[in-house]
C-alpha cells in the first residue's frame, strides 16, 4: 500500500503567519487515531521558556485511516491528504 502523505500549508496555519494552531486545534481533535502534533516551530529564535510560534505536523502517518475529517474540519483549508 502506498504511504500516506499529509501536507499542511504553513502560509495558512501556524509559524506565526496563519492561524495560531494552539487557538484552533480542530484537526487535533477531529483525528480519531491522533495523527497530528502541535509543537513549537523549530529553526526560528523563540523564548525557550514560553515559545509563541507553533505549527502542526502530521507525525503518525502510518496510523492515518484516510477518513479525511481533518480536511473538512480545517477552517483554513490548509490540509491535504494523499
Amino acid at each position: 500500500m502506498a504511504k500516506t502523505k499529509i501536507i499542511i500549508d504553513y502560509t495558512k496555519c501556524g509559524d506565526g503567519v496563519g492561524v495560531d494552531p494552539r487557538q484552533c486545534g480542530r484537526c487535533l481533535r477531529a483525528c480519531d487515531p491522533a495523527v497530528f502534533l502541535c509543537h513549537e516551530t523549530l529553526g526560528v529564535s523563540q523564548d525557550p521558556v514560553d515559545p509563541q510560534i507553533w505549527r502542526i505536523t502530521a507525525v503518525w502517518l502510518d496510523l492515518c485511516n484516510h477518513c479525511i475529517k481533518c480536511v473538512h474540519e480545517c477552517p483554513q483549508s490548509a490540509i491535504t491528504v494523499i
Partner: protein
Amino acid sequence: MKHGAGGKWYLNARNYSDQLAKDLDLESYLTEQWSNFETVFIRKIMGISSIGLGYKLRMPIIGRVIRWNAEKMIHSESKNRNPFRADGHFGQVLPLEDAKLILSNLAAEPIIENYCMCRLMQRGIKEVCCINFGVLSGVIEKLPRFIPENTKLRLDREEAVARLEKHSRAGRVSTVWFQPVPYVCAICSCETPQCGGLRLRNDFGLMSVYKGEYVIRLDPDRCQGCKLCVSMCQFGALRHSPSLKRVLVDNTKCFGCGLCRHACNFDALQLVPREEVPGLKGMY
C-alpha cells in the same frame, strides 16, 4: 531493583530522593526535556525523526536498526543522556492502589498537578491531569504553558490522592514514570491514543511503558455479562461473548491497570500478581 525484574521498582524510596536528583544533576536535564517535549517526535536523531515511524520500522534491516536504537535511547542509563530525545524516560502501568501508595508515602515534595502535555500537544486540550513531584515540580512551575488557570498548582498528599482517584474512575490509566531512570517524578493518568508513551508501546511495540505487576482475573460465576467493563479497557483486553453471556479476558493484552473494576457492579474482576499467573511471568 531493576524494572521488569519481577519486582516493584517503583516502591524503592531511593528512586524518589532529592539526593539522587542532585547527584544526577536532573534539574538541568528536566528543564531541557520539558522545554522541548513537544518537539521530541519531530527532531531528527541521527538523521531520522519519528515522522512516519511505522513505515520506517517496517523497512527491512534499517527498521530493525531504528528499533534497536530507539529502545537504547528509551532505556539509556548513560551519563551523557540527551534531554532533547528524552533519553531514559519510560514508565509502567499501575493499579490505583499502588499509585495511591506512591503519592501518600514515596513522592518527594512539592507535588503539583499541571496540564497533561501529551493531550495538549496531540489534542490541543488543556486538562489538569498530570501529577508531578520532586525536582520536576520546580521545573514545570517555570513553564507557563503547563500551568493550569483558575486552580491551584501545588497539592498536598491527600489532594493528590483524591485527584488521582477521580482520574482513574473516569477511565484513565495510572502510570509511573522514570524521568530519567532511575529517578521517579511523575504519576500520569493516561489516555490512549493521545498519550505519547502508550502510543509507542501500543502502536509500535516499543517498551516505553511496561505492563503492570498485575493482571486481571474474571470470575465467570459472578460476571453477569453487562459489558460495562469492556468500555473501560484501553488495551482491547476485554470482549463480551454473546454465547457465553459473559466477558472474556485476553491475558496477553491486559496491562493490569484494573480500571475495569471501577465499572463492575458484581465484584467479578480482581487483580492478581502477574508473577503468579503461569504463562505471564516476566511478560511485561
